[in-house]
Each structure stands twice: as C-alpha cells, then as structure tokens.
C-alpha cells in the first residue's frame, strides 16, 4: 500500500479500478486481447471479422476480462454451426453435421484461432470466476475485496523478496503439478503425488544425514536421485495394481497417501530416524554440504526452483518427443485404440506412474534440502493437492503447469502476509483454491449452454454421471 509498487498484473485483472497511470495500459491490453479473441470467435461463424473486433475492443476496454466472461457464455452457443442440409446444430469445431453427416465447408486459420481463443478463454475465465467469487465472499464478510486483492498481489509480487518467496512457494507446486499432470494425461487419476512427496523427502533426508563424507554437489545430486527413485517406487504400487489387476487408482492413491504420511511420521517419531531429545518429530539435520544455500536475502529461495524449471523442459520434451510421451498421450486420448494398435498399455502405465511419483519425490527432496534441512513429520502443506489443482487448471500441459504454479505460489505466498496487512485470514486462499477447483470441475463440462441448444434436438439418451 504505502510505498509499495502495485504490480502490473493487478491492473491487468481489474483495470477499471483505482486511478493510476498503469490503469490505461491495462485497459489497452485487455482491449486488444478482447478484440482479438472476439474477432476470431465471430469470424469462425460469419467470416466478417471487423464487427467482432469492434465489439471486442469496446468490451475489452470497458472492463477487460470481467465483461469478457459473460460475453463468452453468450458467444459460444451462438457459434454452433447450422447444417445447410438438415438444419441441425453442431458444435463450432465440427467438420460434419452431427445429424445427417453433411460436411461443412473448410474454414482455415480462423478455426485454429477460435480453438486457441477457446482454450485461453477457459483458463482465464476459470481463474477470474474464482477470484470474483472470492471477492464476493470477502465483500459479504464485510471486507474490502479490492484492497485485499491489491495487497495480495503486492505482497506476492511487489518486492524482490516477495517475488522470491512466491517462487519458493511455487517450486514444489511445479513438481507436484508436473507429476500429477503426466498421470492425468495418460488418463490415470493419480491423487497420490502427496505420498510420493513424503517418501522422496524421507529418502533425501536419509541420504543427507547418512552419507556425511560425500562432497557437496555429489551428495545433493545423490539425494535428489534417491528421492526420485523412492517417490517413483511409491507410485509404482498403485500403478501395478491398476496395470495388472485393474484396481481403480483414485481410491488406492488417496489411501496410500495416508499410508505414506503415517509411515514417514513413524520413521521419525518412533522409528529408526528418531532423534531422542527432540521436541518435534524431526529427523537429524542433514549434512552441511547438502543444505542448499539461500539465494536471496530474507527468503528461503534456493536452487530447487531451477531444478523445477529443468523438469518442466524435460517433461515437455518427454511428452512431445519420446515414445513414452506418445504412448502416454495416446492412452489418455483413446485407450481402446491404443490396445488395438499394439501399444503395451500396462507397461506404459507403470512407466508413467513411476515418473509421476519421481517428480513428487523431487518435490519432497526440494523441501528437505532447501527449506527445512531435515525431515519433519507431516511437513507438507498440501503441496500434492495444490499440484492437483494446478494440473487440472492447466489441462495437463507442462507450460501451463509452470504458469499455474507461479500464480498459485504468488497466491499462497501473498496470502501468508495478508493477515498482517488486512484483517482477512489466510484461509481465504484455501477458499479461492476450492473455488478454482470447483470451477475447473464444472468447466470440464462447461459448454453446457451450447449443449442445451443442441440437446433440444432429439438425440441419444444421455448416461448418468456414474462414478
């Protein structure tokens, strides 16, 4: 507030609020974005882009994404294509009429753009709806929503130290987000990255305080490697059950999370890693040379962040350029087709679950080597579940996970200081997170307005939402 530089992202989100010079940049930015999106969307229907562009410019300028959201709701159903032969409505991206099969004439670049606009709009709108809903909650509680959000962004992104803390908070989220995302991409609903995180953390701590004679860099590398293996092996348990015995992975991974939490707690509370005389349930402190140095004064930001960035690149490469990535995507897209094409689905599931767990293990190791310097029972503040949220929001894309993790990290980091400067409790962040997940869950089926119109035609009976 006083003396704090209000970062641009805040104005980008709510350009019509406040009165600073940066306001107009926000308006302009959203005007352009709004114009481009709307133009693409309208063009794909009518082949006349200037009308859409004008509309987008106005709405973008007037309220940015806040107005774009309802516009999107209105626009999407209007983009349904009407078949010339039989008059039925089909979804905008269809190539042929869903009822009579008549092919639609080709469209060109506008179709790609409208697809892109669609994806961007969904992410932005989901986040935005969650923030708006959070804002409503704040207002109903008698708090100043705008001020709260301003503080949130300032303390998340305002000073170098704040930014460092945001990056620090984002680090484990990037890794757990990646781990969850690759499993999701293969169609495996792996909720168990939290468990792998704990196993990896324990393993890293063990390496850290056992091999005290090994030189620094080697020890660190060893710790991370062992943590990845530990997390990966933990991920193989539900993976094997799914691949070999077709046991549903949702319940098993949730349950195994608790097993991991309890097991690792046991190890330090009464098991082999128990340190007599310690008040808290902590393991021995790891060797000095294994402790990752604090890179920015006043923050625990450490090199694990860069490891996480590397992992983003690695996962991206794996997904796009390797056999495993191809198999993962194919199984996620159509597992039956994968089988019919000779893909060894079981083997792929095992590999994916190992990789997923390994990333979780790295996240845990990062916390041990970079933040706590030991293993403390139940230390995770829900990194695994945050990762899940991010993977959902990013629709499993590695770059999307990175962006989502950065945003979330800022949110969490800024959130911790909210309590000091406003009278809003930190739990607001949990509420916003819940809202994000909720809106993502609904969004996964959110073209329902468009569906409603199409459903008004006679169609096949629709199945119930079964488990």
């Amino acid at each position, binding site marked *: 507030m006083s003396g704090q530089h209000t970062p641009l992202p805040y104005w980008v989100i709510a350009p019509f609020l406040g009165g600073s010079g940066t306001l107009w940049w926000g308006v302009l930015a959203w005007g352009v974005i709004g114009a481009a999106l709307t133009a693409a969307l309208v063009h794909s229907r009518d082949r006349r882009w200037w009308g859409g562009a004008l509309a987008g410019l106005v709405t973008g300028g007037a309220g940015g994404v806040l107005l774009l959201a309802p516009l999107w709701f209105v626009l999407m159903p209007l983009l349904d294509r009407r078949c010339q032969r039989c008059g039925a409505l089909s979804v905008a991206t269809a190539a042929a009429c869903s009822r009579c099969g008549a092919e639609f004439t080709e469209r060109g670049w506008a179709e790609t753009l409208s697809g892109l606009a669609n994806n961007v709009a969904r992410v932005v709108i989901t986040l935005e709806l969650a923030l708006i809903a959070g804002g409503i*909650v704040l207002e109903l*509680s*008698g*708090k100043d929503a705008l001020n709260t959000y301003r503080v949130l962004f300032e303390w998340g992104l305002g000073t170098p130290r704040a930014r460092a803390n945001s990056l620090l908070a984002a680090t484990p989220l990037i890794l757990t987000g990646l781990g969850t995302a690759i499993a999701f991409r293969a169609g495996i*609903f792996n*909720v168990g990255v939290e468990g792998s995180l704990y196993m990896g953390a324990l393993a890293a701590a063990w390496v850290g305080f056992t091999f005290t004679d090994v030189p620094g860099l080697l020890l660190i590398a060893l710790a991370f490697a062992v943590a990845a293996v530990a997390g990966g092996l933990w991920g193989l348990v539900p993976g094997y*059950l799914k691949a070999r*015995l*077709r*046991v*549903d992975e*949702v*319940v*098993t991974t*949730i*349950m*195994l999370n*608790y*097993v991991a939490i*309890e*097991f690792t*707690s*046991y190890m330090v*509370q*009464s*098991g082999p890693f128990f340190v007599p005389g310690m008040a808290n349930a902590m393991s021995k402190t790891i060797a000095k040379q294994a402790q990752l140095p604090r890179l920015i004064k006043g923050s625990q930001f450490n090199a694990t962040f860069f490891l996480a960035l590397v992992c983003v690149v690695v996962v991206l490469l794996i997904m796009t350029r390797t056999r495993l990535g191809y198999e993962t995507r194919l199984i996620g897209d159509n597992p039956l087709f994968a089988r019919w094409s000779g893909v060894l689905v079981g083997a792929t599931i095992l590999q994916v679950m190992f990789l997923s767990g390994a990333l979780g293990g790295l996240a845990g190791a990062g916390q041990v080597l970079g933040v706590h310097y030991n293993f403390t029972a139940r230390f995770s503040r829900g990194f695994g*579940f945050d990762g*899940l949220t991010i993977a*959902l929001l990013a629709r499993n894309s590695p770059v999307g996970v990175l962006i989502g993790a950065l945003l979330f990290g800022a949110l969490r980091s800024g959130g911790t200081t909210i309590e000091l400067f406003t009278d809003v*409790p930190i*739990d*607001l*962040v*949990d*509420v*916003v*997170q*819940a*809202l994000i*997940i*909720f809106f*993502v*869950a*609904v969004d*996964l*089926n959110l073209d*329902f307005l468009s569906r409603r119109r199409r459903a008004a035609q006679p169609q096949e*009976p629709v*199945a*119930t*939402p*079964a*488990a």
Partner: protein
Amino acid sequence: MDWVNLAAATLRISTPLLMVGMAGLLSYQVGLINIALEGMMLGGAFAGVVIGYEAGSTWLGVLGATLIGAALGALFALAVITLRANLIVSGLALNFLATGGTAYLMDILYDQSGTLAPQGLQKLPVVQLPLIEDIPTLGRIVSGHSPLVYVSWVLVPLTAIFLYRTVVGGHIRAVGEHAEAARTAGISVRRMQYLALILGGALCGLAGAHLSLGDLPLFREKMTNDRGFIALAAVYFAAARPGWTALACLLFGFFEALQFRLQLQKTSVPNEFLQMLPYVMVVLALVVISVRKEWRKGW
C-alpha cells in the same frame, strides 16, 4: 489397560464413523463415490458450534449442523448431477471449501483462529440409560454417553431398513446398480441421486455435531481428522452392506481408541501403523475384489 474405559471410548469414537459410514453407504448405493464426506462433516461441526452458540441452545446447534450438512450435500449434488462436473474433482473441491471456509468464517465472525470455544456453549447432556446403568461392567460401557452415540446405533438398522425395505430405498439401489433399468421402470434417476446425497450430507452434518458438541463443546480446525476417508474405507471394505460397514467402523474406532491409550504406554506396535490400518485394509479389499473378478475371467 482399563478395558472398560477402552470399550466405552470405542463406542464414543465410533459414533461419527458410523454416521458418516451410513452416509457413504447411501452414496455408494446410488452409484456415486462420495469423496466429500469429510467436508460435509467439518461443515456440520462448525455449524453446530456457531448455531448452538448464537441460538443459545445446543440442540438447535445439532439441528443446524444437520441442515448445513444437508445443504452441502445438495451443493455437491448440484455440481455433480445437474452441472455434470467431474465427481472426484468436485468432491475434493468441497473438502477444500470446507477446510478453508470454516477457518475463514471462524476468523471473520469471531476473530478466532485455530479453535473456537464460545463462552456459555454447553455440550450435549450425558444420557444415563435407566436400567442398564446399574449393570456392573456393561453399565459403565454402554451408559453415560452423549445422546448422539445412541442415535448412531439406531441409524444403522434404520439405514438398512430404509435401503432394503422401503420403496424409495429400493429405487436408490436400482439406480446405483443399473440406472437404465431404473429409468425405464419410471424412476427418476436424478431425484434418487439428489436424495441420497442430501440425506448423506445430513448424516455427515450430524456426525460433525457429535464431534463439536458431544464432548468438549468446541470447533477446532480440521477436527474431522480424515475420519471421512476412514468411513469411506469402511464402506468399501464392507462392500456397502450396512451391517458389515458398521462393524468395520467399530473396528476402526477401536483402533483409534486403542492407539490413544497405547501412546501413553510404550508398546512394540507404533501408533502410526495402527493409524495406517484402515487405509491399508481398503487397498487390500480392492485388490481382493479385483483378483476375484480376474479369476473368474481366467486371467
């Protein structure tokens, strides 16, 4: 080891598990995995304390808790059935909403964090069963509990009767097992699913009330302590049969009670392994079910 005390504690600790177990049962029978039991219970616990305090009556708090639980159940149903949101994700969302929301409200409304123990809020009266309390050992175990403990015992046969003897219960089971058959028979699948989730929510709310009003009248953040998942584990383990589910809940309650007492004494079996037990058992149960299915297909 004071076995009498342990037995009494088992009954007390099993109560929320029994109620949530029945709620999980209802969801399972209607064909929806309910991950959100935890959140509904927590919401109920919070509502119990707040409403009990504001209204000046603990029983009104219990009622409020039940209603809030039902409301959360309705919200969950709205998301999953009407809005077609993903079942698992919505369940997780509701849980997060409950954890964050209760902590948030606690701060907003009462400027407290961590624990909410309003002055003047009474816990539920202890019930002494007339004749039974005089029986030597049994009396000490069975009598002298909070009334919700006895309610939970009644709920088990009540749920069984509801599911297996009433018309509506039969419809719920049909919807869960073969929705198409139910639909052609003229049953509204959505209505049954809504009903099961709302009833389940109410039961979870009631369980929450027991947690927050049954012993020490207070609300603590995350006080449900994953009991929702343990109860879900019991349902899976018992393949959604009421009697076996109740037994599983009692068993898990026993382990929890035992584990408290063992913490005071030094024993060879670490607490954490006891706490792990329900989860491991679920995984084992699922494995056994799958193995049997594969066996019949001939691997």
